[in-house]
């Protein structure tokens, strides 16, 4: 396959994407490489808040050697198309954690696409993604977990929850497991919901205006995604950006 050919819908990883928007920014830049040496730990954050009409493609390859660990925090809120792909390869006993939030409105398509290769025994991975989608926005999480034949004692989890604020918004959550070992734990949960109407009425009955009530509920929904960012200033920047985007949807 020609590496420069524009992907099509038949391409699993691009199935729900905005290919028209993509065409304007193709070919995308080469992936950014993150290497975590044996026993080291690393923390990465990405605040993808490109302007409304932009196409932002952020591609990462993460290689974590034996006993290493990497935490990745993503807030994906910007662009007509905002796509974050992370391909991770885990060595023996290595650990990868992704905490991501997608918050979109209007005609945005926002995606987090991950592939986690458990290449050696005893590695663990954890992925938590929360999406809030309004208007005609589309939010996608595609998460593939590949467990190699000798990667026994693999422990992988994915927790994906989406909240739709309008009937016209769309959430896609697609886990994919490719497991060749037999002693493996893979936990996957995905839900799509709407704001709790009885909570909204309860809040209104106390005098809360609808926009504030919605923002409070949504803040609670994405709360915790950025708790793990150790640097206070960074964490506050993510929380503030998420809140501003939630308020813009109200």
């Amino acid at each position: 396959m020609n590496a420069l050919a524009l992907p099509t819908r038949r391409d699993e990883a691009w199935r729900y994407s905005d290919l028209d928007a993509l065409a304007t920014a193709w070919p995308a830049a080469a992936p950014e490489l993150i290497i975590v040496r044996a026993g080291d730990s690393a923390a990465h954050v990405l605040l993808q808040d490109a302007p409304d009409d932009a196409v932002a493609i952020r591609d990462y390859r993460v290689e974590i050697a034996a006993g290493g660990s990497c935490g990745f925090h993503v807030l994906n809120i910007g662009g007509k198309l905002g796509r974050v792909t992370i391909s991770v390869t885990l060595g023996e006993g290595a650990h990868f954690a992704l905490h991501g939030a997608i918050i979109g409105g209007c005609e945005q398509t926002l995606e987090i696409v991950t592939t986690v290769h458990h290449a050696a025994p005893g590695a663990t991975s954890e992925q938590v993604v929360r999406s809030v989608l309004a208007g005609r926005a589309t939010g996608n999480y595609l998460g593939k977990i590949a467990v190699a034949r000798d990667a026994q004692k693999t422990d992988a989890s994915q927790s994906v929850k989406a909240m739709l604020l309008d009937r016209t918004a769309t959430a896609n959550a697609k886990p994919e497991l490719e497991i060749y070992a037999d002693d493996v734990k893979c936990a996957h949960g995905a839900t799509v919901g709407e704001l709790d109407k009885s909570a909204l009425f309860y809040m209104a009955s106390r005098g809360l205006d609808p926009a504030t009530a919605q923002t409070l509920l949504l803040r609670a929904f994405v709360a915790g995604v950025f708790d793990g960012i150790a640097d206070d200033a960074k964490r506050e920047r993510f929380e503030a950006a998420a809140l501003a985007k939630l308020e813009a949807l109200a």
Partner: protein
Amino acid sequence: MLQITNLSNTVADKPILKGLSLTIQPGEIHAIMGPNGAGKSTLAYTLGGRPGYEVTGGTVTFQSNSVRPELVEGLSFSGDKREEKDGASTGSARTDVGAIDLLALDPHERAAAGLFLGFQYPVEIPGVSNLQFLRESLNSQRKARGEAPLSGGEFIKLAKEKAALLGMDMDMLKRPVNVGFSGGEKKRNEMVQMGILDPKLAILDETDSGLDIDALRIVGAGINAIMRKPDKAVLLITHYQRLLDYVKPDFVHVLAGGRIVKSGGPELALELEREGYAEVVAA
């Protein structure tokens, strides 16, 4: 304070209230009793403006505050609804000082006008602390009334005072709204909220159910302390006389089949407790 005239509604296309009338004056406490499914909670929700509780007839006028008429002007009416009701004259809402067409307001505007609903089943809101929720609610009300917001310090002082009045631990107010609260704790929390929001009219839907004997006494005393005032009024929905021993009603009504079928003084509650509803409802 509240004048309900011939109120009818449907819930999921099913008629529930069928021409209910009731007038409450400032300073009064009214109790509503009635069989399960009679429409008591429906009345509370309809007055609160719950979506899905469709008013099909009648009117509700709320004399929100004769002492502070500016409250009415400060309220943010949604323009089109008001036009329908008031025609072109912007002056008409002001001529009857403080009288509001309650049904024209959105639920949060009704709260800002001074209405409080104590829920039969208080709602849990994971991830939102009681304190944050109440502070935002109170300040949202104050903003709608054109009042300055309370600072964090002022709010905490107020919350502590009301929690103490209801014998509730401040730690519970730091927890998410009603999450993991016992049935009785939820009811007590409703009353703490009422204390903080300081409404003009409280509609309390079975606030007594789920309370233990001591809690019932504390909640009863709390309702009296917060609401027994010449410019306030309470509508208590209850199944049992015991709450009425603490919060003495001026009037007792029986709601059955979507209407008030009988009204009387406090003795009516005792009579109902002895005889049941059969006679009243049949009459």
